[in-house]
C-alpha cells in the first residue's frame, strides 16, 4: 500500500489537493495522515524554491546513531538557516525529559476541551442517525420535535460526508435524502436549550425508510449475489487525515480493486527459494474509541464563524468549513485548545461539524454537538482484513519473493490495504501485492494510527518468524540479514542485550497448561513532512517569549515539544515559554496525522526562534556597547564572543529593545536532502498462554524505537507506552461485532467493546535510539505510528507460537479464538 512514490513526502508534501487527486492514502496516521502530494499537482505550492533562489552555505551536521559512533554530514543549506544543533547530550533543554507544558491544567481539570466549552446562550444538539443498515429515506417528520418547548433548530443532512460516492451518480435514482448505507449514518440534528430536551426531541423525529437488502460481513459481501452496498463503482475521498483507497480501480459487486504493485517476478523468485511459507491471516475491525467523542461548538455569525473543534487539524476544519459553506477561509476561526484523543479519526468538518454549523446559523446561537459514545464507535474504524501471504527465501535467509493479496473492509469507505510492511520492511527483489476493498453496510473506515500497518505486520512479521523457524535461524539474526535499516539493527542489539531473548526455548517446549514464550516483531513508518507548517515567535520588551501556530496538541505533547525548541534558542526554561497553538488566527500549522507534526513544525519553530533572537541581538547590542554578531547564547546566558565576561540574560537584552516587541515568522523549508527515510522499532514480548482457559497474558514488553532526534524523551516514551498498550488491546480484546440479521453494531459501547484496562498492563521498558539524519534544523520526527501499535499483534503472535508451537493467524486472541487455534472447543473459523 505504501508505494515508493508516496515516500517522497518529505520534499513535496503540501496540503489540500483535491481529494480525487490524492495518491492512495497510506495509512497515515495516528493521527491520520501525512498526505504526500504528487509534484505535478501542486506546482504553485511546491517547495519554496530554495535551492535555486536562496543563497546557500555548506555546513556540517551531526549524523548517525550514537551506538554506532556519530559522524558528520555536509549539507548545503540556505544561508540564513540556524547553525547545526549538536547532539542532545550537548544541549541544555532539548533531549531532557520534560514534564508536560500543560500538565497543571490537565491534572486539575482546568484544561478546556471542546466538550467543555460553554458559551453564553449556547444550545445543545443531538445527532439523529439511521436505524436501518440500507435503504432510502422516504420521509422525515420533524414537526413533533420542533413543537417541543426548548427546541430551537432542526437540520436535515443533504449530503453525508465520509461515505464513498458513486462514480456515476445516475446509477441511483435521485432522492431528496441521502441513501442510507449503514445503521448509524447521520440523518439530522436538533438543537435545544438542554441536552435532555434535544434527546427528547430526537426521539420524536419520525423517519420512514424504504428498506433494501444489506450485508455486514466481509466474506459474504464478496459473493456474486451479495446485496450491493453501491449499485456501481464508488470511490471514497480521503480526509485530511487519510483514509480512502485507490480511485478509479475496477469494481465487481462490492469488491473494489485491486490496487496492484509489482516488482520483479515473484514466480521466478519462488523458483529460486529453498523455503516457502504461505498462509492466511484474519484481523478484525477496531474502533478508535477516543475518550472525547467527535464534536464541535459552532458560533455562526455573519462576519465570522467561530468553531471549537475536537480535531487533529484546525487547518483541515477551517478548509472544509470554507468549502462546504462557500465562505472564505479568513471567515472561519477554528480553536482546539485541548483535545481528548483522535488516533486518526478527527479531521475536517465532518457531518457533526456541518450539522452544528447549520443549527447555529438557523438558531442564531452557539451550538454544541458532541457525538455520543455509540455514535463514536460507529463513525470510524480501522478496517478488517483477510490476507493471503507467501514468502520465499534462500537457505542463507535472503528473501527471493513476497506476494500478498488482501481483502479488507472499510465499511462504506475504502482504504483497507495492508501491504505497507510487506513492501517496505525488507529488501526483496520480487514483490507482488494486490489490495482489495470490500464494501459492506457498516460505518466508514478512517485513518487509525499507522493505517494498514498493524494488520499487515500481523501477517508479515509472523510469516518472517515462520521462515526463520523453517530455515533454523534466530529471528533476530534473520532480520540482520534482510533488514537494511541501521536504526533497527541497533534496536535489535538492544533487545538482544537487555531482554531474556537468549534464554528463549524452542517453540512449544514449555510444559504444563500455562505456557510461556517470547517473540519479537518490527515496524516501519515513513518520514512525512507537511510544508504547511508556519509559526511566529514573539519577544516582548519584558523578556517574555511566545510561540504561535494553529498546530494542535492531541495529547502527543506538541506544546511541550515546541516549548523545548524555543527554550533552547533563548536559554529560558520551557515552562516560561508561552505556547499559543490550536487557533487558526495564528500562522497555519500542519494537520496532525501520520506522525507528521514534530518533523514538520519544529524546524519552522526553531528557525523563527533563531531569527527572533538575531533581531533581538541586533536591537539590543548597540545599547549594550557590543556588536550583535559577537553575541551568542551559551546555555542560559547570552555572552560576548570576544569578551566572555560580558554576559546577559534574554530579559536584560529585551529591556533594551527600541520597540515593544520583536517577532519572526517562519514556514517549513524543504528538507536538506532528498532522501527517503523511514523509522521503525523492534518490540519484544513475553507472555503466558493458559491452554485450558485460552487466556493470553502479556507479561513483559521491551520496545526499542527511533524517531530521529528525540526532543522530549518523557513524552516520546509515553506515546510508545500508549502504542504498545493499544497494540495489545487490538491483539487480544477489541472487536466490532455486527449483527448479521439486523445490520447494526452490537457492542457500540465501552463495556462490551473491550479495550485494555489497568489490570492488563504488562511490565514495559522502552529504549529510545537517537538517530541524527541531518535533514532539518531540528531532525525531530513523530513517533505516534511506529510506537508499538504496528508490531504488537505480530510480536504477540510470535511469542504465542514460541509458547505453544501453534500459530495464531486470527485476532483478537480471545479465549474462544485461542482454544479454537489450539484444537480445543471454539467457534468455527470465520471468514
Amino acid at each position, binding site marked *: 500500500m505504501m508505494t515508493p512514490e508516496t515516500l517522497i513526502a518529505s520534499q513535496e508534501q503540501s496540503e489540500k489537493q483535491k481529494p480525487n487527486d490524492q495518491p492512495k492514502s497510506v495509512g497515515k496516521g495516528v493521527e491520520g495522515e501525512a498526505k504526500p502530494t504528487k509534484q505535478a499537482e501542486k506546482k504553485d505550492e511546491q517547495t519554496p524554491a530554495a535551492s535555486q533562489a536562496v543563497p546557500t552555505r555548506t555546513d556540517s551536521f551531526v549524523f548517525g546513531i550514537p551506538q554506532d559512533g556519530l559522524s558528520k554530514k555536509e549539507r548545503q543549506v540556505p544561508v540564513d538557516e540556524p547553525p547545526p544543533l549538536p547532539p542532545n547530550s550537548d544541549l541544555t533543554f532539548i533531549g531532557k525529559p520534560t514534564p508536560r507544558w500543560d500538565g497543571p491544567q490537565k491534572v*486539575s481539570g482546568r484544561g478546556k476541551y471542546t466538550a467543555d466549552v460553554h458559551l453564553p446562550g449556547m444550545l445543545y444538539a443531538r445527532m439523529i442517525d439511521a436505524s436501518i443498515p440500507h435503504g432510502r429515506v422516504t420521509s422525515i417528520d420533524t414537526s413533533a420535535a420542533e413543537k417541543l418547548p426548548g427546541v430551537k433548530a432542526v437540520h436535515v443532512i443533504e449530503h453525508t460526508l465520509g461515505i464513498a460516492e458513486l462514480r456515476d451518480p445516475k446509477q441511483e435514482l435521485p432522492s431528496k435524502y441521502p441513501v442510507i448505507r449503514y445503521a448509524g449514518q447521520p440523518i439530522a440534528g436538533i438543537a435545544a436549550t438542554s441536552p435532555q430536551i434535544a434527546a427528547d426531541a430526537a426521539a420524536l423525529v419520525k423517519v420512514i425508510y424504504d428498506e433494501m437488502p444489506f450485508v455486514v460481513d466481509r466474506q459474504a459481501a464478496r459473493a456474486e449475489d451479495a446485496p450491493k452496498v453501491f449499485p456501481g463503482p464508488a470511490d471514497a475521498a480521503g480526509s485530511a487525515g487519510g483514509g480512502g483507497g485507490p480511485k478509479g480501480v475496477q469494481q465487481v459487486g462490492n469488491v473494489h480493486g485491486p490496487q496492484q504493485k509489482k516488482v520483479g517476478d515473484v514466480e521466478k523468485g519462488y523458483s529460486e527459494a529453498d523455503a516457502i511459507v504461505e498462509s492466511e491471516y484474519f484481523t478484525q475491525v477496531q474502533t478508535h474509541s477516543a475518550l472525547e467523542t467527535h464534536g464541535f461548538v459552532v458560533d455562526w455569525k455573519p462576519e465570522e464563524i467561530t468553531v471549537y473543534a475536537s480535531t487533529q487539524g484546525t487547518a483541515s476544519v477551517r478548509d472544509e468549513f470554507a468549502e462546504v459553506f462557500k465562505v472564505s477561509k479568513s471567515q472561519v476561526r477554528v480553536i482546539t485548545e485541548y483535545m481528548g484523543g483522535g488516533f486518526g479519526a478527527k479531521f475536517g468538518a465532518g457531518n457533526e461539524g456541518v450539522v452544528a454549523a447549520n443549527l447555529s446559523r438557523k438558531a442564531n446561537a452557539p451550538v454544541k454537538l458532541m457525538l455520543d459514545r455509540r455514535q463514536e464507535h460507529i463513525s470510524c474504524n480501522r478496517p478488517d482484513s483477510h490476507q493471503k501471504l507467501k514468502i520465499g527465501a534462500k537457505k542463507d535467509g535472503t528473501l527471493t519473493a513476497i506476494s500478498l493479496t488482501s481483502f479488507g473492509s472499510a465499511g462504506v469507505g475504502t482504504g483497507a490495504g495492508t501491504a505497507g510492511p510487506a513492501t517496505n520492511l525488507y529488501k526483496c527483489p520480487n514483490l507482488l501485492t494486490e489490495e482489495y476493498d470490500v464494501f459492506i453496510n457498516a460505518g466508514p473506515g478512517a485513518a487509525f494510527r499507522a493505517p494498514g500497518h498493524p494488520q499487515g505486520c500481523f501477517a508479515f512479521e509472523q510469516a518472517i518468524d515462520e521462515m526463520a523457524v523453517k530455515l533454523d535461524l534466530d529471528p533476530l539474526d534473520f532480520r540482520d540479514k534482510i533488514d537494511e535499516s541501521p536504526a533497527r539493527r541497533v534496536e535489535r542489539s538492544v533487545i538482544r542485550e537487555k531482554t531474556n531473548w537468549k534464554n528463549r526455548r524452542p517453540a512449544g517446549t514449555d510444559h504444563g497448561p500455562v505456557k510461556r514464550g517470547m517473540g519479537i516483531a518490527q515496524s516501519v513508518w515513513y518520514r512525512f513532512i507537511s510544508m504547511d507548517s508556519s509559526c511566529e515567535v514573539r519577544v516582548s520588551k519584558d523578556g517574555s517569549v511566545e510561540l504561535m501556530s494553529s498546530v494542535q496538541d492531541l495529547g502527543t505533547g506538541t506544546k511541550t515539544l515546541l516549548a523545548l525548541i524555543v527554550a533552547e534558542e533563548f536559554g529560558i526554561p520551557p515552562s516560561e515559554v508561552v505556547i499559543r497553538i490550536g487557533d487558526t488566527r495564528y500562522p497555519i500549522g500542519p494537520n496532525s496525522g501520520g506522525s507528521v507534526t514534530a518533523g514538520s513544525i519544529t524546524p519552522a519553530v526553531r528557525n523563527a526562534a533563531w531569527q527572533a533572537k538575531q533581531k533581538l541581538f541586533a536591537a539590543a547590542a548597540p545599547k549594550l556597547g557590543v556588536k550583535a554578531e559577537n553575541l551568542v547564547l551559551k546555555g542560559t546566558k547570552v555572552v560576548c564572543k570576544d569578551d566572555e565576561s560580558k554576559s546577559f540574560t534574554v530579559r536584560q537584552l529585551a529591556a533594551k529593545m527600541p520597540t515593544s516587541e520583536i517577532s519572526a515568522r517562519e514556514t517549513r523549508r524543504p528538507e536538506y536532502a532528498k532522501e527517503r527515510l523511514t523509522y521503525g522499532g523492534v518490540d519484544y514480548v513475553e507472555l503466558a498462554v493458559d491452554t485450558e482457559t485460552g487466556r493470553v497474558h502479556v507479561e513483559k514488553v521491551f520496545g526499542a524505537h527511533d524517531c530521529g532526534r528525540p526532543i522530549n524523551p518523557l513524552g516520546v516514551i509515553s506515546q510508545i507506552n*500508549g502504542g504498545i498498550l493499544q497494540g495489545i488491546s487490538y491483539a487480544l480484546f477489541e472487536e466490532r461485532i455486527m449483527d448479521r440479521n439486523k445490520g447494526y453494531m452490537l457492542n457500540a459501547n465501552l463495556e462490551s467493546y473491550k479495550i485494555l484496562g489497568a489490570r492488563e498492563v504488562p511490565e514495559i521498558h522502552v529504549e529510545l535510539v537517537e538517530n541524527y539524519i541531518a535533514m532539518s534544523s531540528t531532525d525531530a520526527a513523530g513517533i505516534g505510528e511506529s510506537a508499538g501499535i504496528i508490531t504488537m499483534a505480530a510480536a504477540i503472535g510470535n511469542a504465542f507460537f514460541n509458547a505453544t508451537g501453534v500459530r495464531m493467524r486470527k485476532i483478537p486472541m480471545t479465549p474462544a479464538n485461542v482454544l479454537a487455534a489450539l484444537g480445543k472447543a471454539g467457534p468455527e473459523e470465520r471468514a
Partner: protein
Amino acid sequence: MSDTPKIEVSRRGFLKSAGLTAATSVLNTATALAHDAERAASSSGAVGPDAVPIKLHINGMDHAVTVEPRYTLAETLRDHLNLTGTKVVCDRGSCSACTIWVDGAPQLACMTLAVDSVGRKITTIEGLSHGEQLHPVQTAFIKHDAMQCGFCTPGMVMSCAALLKRNSSPSLADVKHAVSGNLCRCGTYPKVFEATLEAAKHGNLSARLLDLSPAKEG
C-alpha cells in the same frame, strides 16, 4: 436547560400544580404527572418531572442550582455549574472518567442523580487542589507524565487520591485495582502507576488528605 429556574416551586406547590395539571389534562404528560403525584403522596421524597431548585455542597461550598430530577450529577456539574473538570466519556458507568468523591468515597457522577446528592459532600477534581497548591497525586502525575490527551486524567487522579486516602502505602496491585475501572485510550497506565506509588512514598499525605470540605449542615 438554563440555570434560571422556570418557576420557583416548593415541593407542596409543585405537587399542587402537578395535580391541577393532571386534573385538567392539558398535557400528554398528565398521566405521568398524576402517577408522580400519587407516588409523592405515599413517599415524601418524590420530585419532578419539572425542574426543582436544590442546593449542592461541592468542594466546600454550597451551590444553588435548578435541575430536573433526571439530570445526572455529571451533567449538573458540567452544564450548570461550569465544573467541567469532571469528564463524561461513556455516560453509563463503564469508564470512570467522571469519578468524583461523595462523602469522601469515589463515585461515578454519570450514574448519580443530582437530586440524590443533596446533603452529601461532593468533591470534584477542581476541589482537590487549592489554587496553585496541587494534591501530591497531581504533582506526581505531572512529574511522571501520567497523562497524554488528559481526558481520563481527572477521573484517574480522583481514583488514585482516594486510594491513598484509604491506603497510604499501596502496592502496584493496589494501584491497578484502584484504577481498574478507569479507561485510558492513550495507554498512559504505566505512568499512572509510577506516579501514584511515588505520591504515596513522598507525598506529605497526612497533611494534605484531611477532609477538604468540612461538612456544614449539608
